[in-house]
């Protein structure tokens, strides 16, 4: 029983880091490629599956002529990860060409996005479908008071505001001390009146 528990613990600790979502700006126009010629349909070979992120990596590097650093920034991943994805896509396409397999473009850990903007004067949110040029003025009211909208930042701000203070307080006498991370407040005893402490302003 204990061994199983330890093995489980190890598995939890050893699990790989979760993949980041890759940002894909342009969807492919087609769902894949089929080979043609007398040999193409002779035996039912498994198609090569190209993930959306791999298609995007190929498009950015070989069609848009970005370098790996620029392309990785566009896809919101690190440069080494981008290079690994790019290496995988070349390997897959070469395999499909040499072995005469179909290419299917599907799947992958991606999200489709275009940049979002927020206008201060009319209060609208707008996206920018044309990636080549940035949005100069608001598409609705035409004002120049427009800035890029960062969804993650705005959400983190409200989370921090809603969470409780980083201070432990004694419910009896009101003695306060700084909360230590990863240490439950009630394991600390108030030095003034010996009651367990609680978290101050706990809104959870």
């Amino acid at each position, binding site marked *: 029983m204990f061994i199983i528990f330890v093995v489980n613990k190890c598995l939890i600790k050893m699990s790989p880091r979760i993949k980041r979502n890759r940002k894909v700006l342009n*969807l492919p126009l087609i769902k894949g490629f089929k080979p043609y010629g007398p040999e193409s349909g002779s035996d039912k070979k498994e198609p090569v599956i190209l993930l959306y992120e791999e298609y995007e990596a190929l498009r950015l590097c070989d069609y848009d002529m970005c370098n790996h650093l620029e392309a990785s920034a566009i896809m919101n991943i690190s440069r080494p990860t981008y290079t690994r994805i790019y290496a995988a896509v070349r390997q897959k396409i070469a395999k499909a060409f040499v072995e005469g397999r179909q290419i299917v473009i599907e799947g992958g850990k991606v999200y489709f*996005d275009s940049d979002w903007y927020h206008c201060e004067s009319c*209060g609208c949110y707008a996206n920018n*479908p*044309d990636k080549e040029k940035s949005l100069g003025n608001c*598409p609705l009211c*035409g004002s120049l008071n427009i800035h890029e909208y960062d969804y993650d930042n705005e959400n983190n701000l409200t989370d921090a505001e809603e969470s409780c203070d980083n201070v432990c307080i004694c419910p009896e006498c009101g003695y306060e001390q700084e909360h230590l991370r990863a240490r439950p407040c009630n394991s600390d005893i108030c030095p003034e009146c010996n009651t367990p402490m609680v978290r101050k302003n706990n809104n959870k």
Partner: protein
Amino acid sequence: MKVAITSTGNSLESKIDKRFGRCSFFVIYDTETKSVEFIPNPNKDAEEGAGPASVQLVATRKADKIVSGEFGLKIKPLLDSLKIQMIVLKEPERTVSDIIDYLNH
């Protein structure tokens, strides 16, 4: 350039609809000729697939922008690939004529 606005009624004084796929009316406004066209939404009571069907309706009218309160999950990638701009207005009190005034600035 044509702009599609989702509306709750078929007059210029009606308020904009918060939903895109199941809105009551689409208002197609042409910024060059200043013409306004009201189209009743056939997908208003559809159980599913109202969003993509509405995108198709708007795309056949060659609109470049859509003004609405919210866009669903399935619609965003579709509009991205059609290069139609989404404008989200989180104020349901605005009327269609307000939006048209904004567009004329």
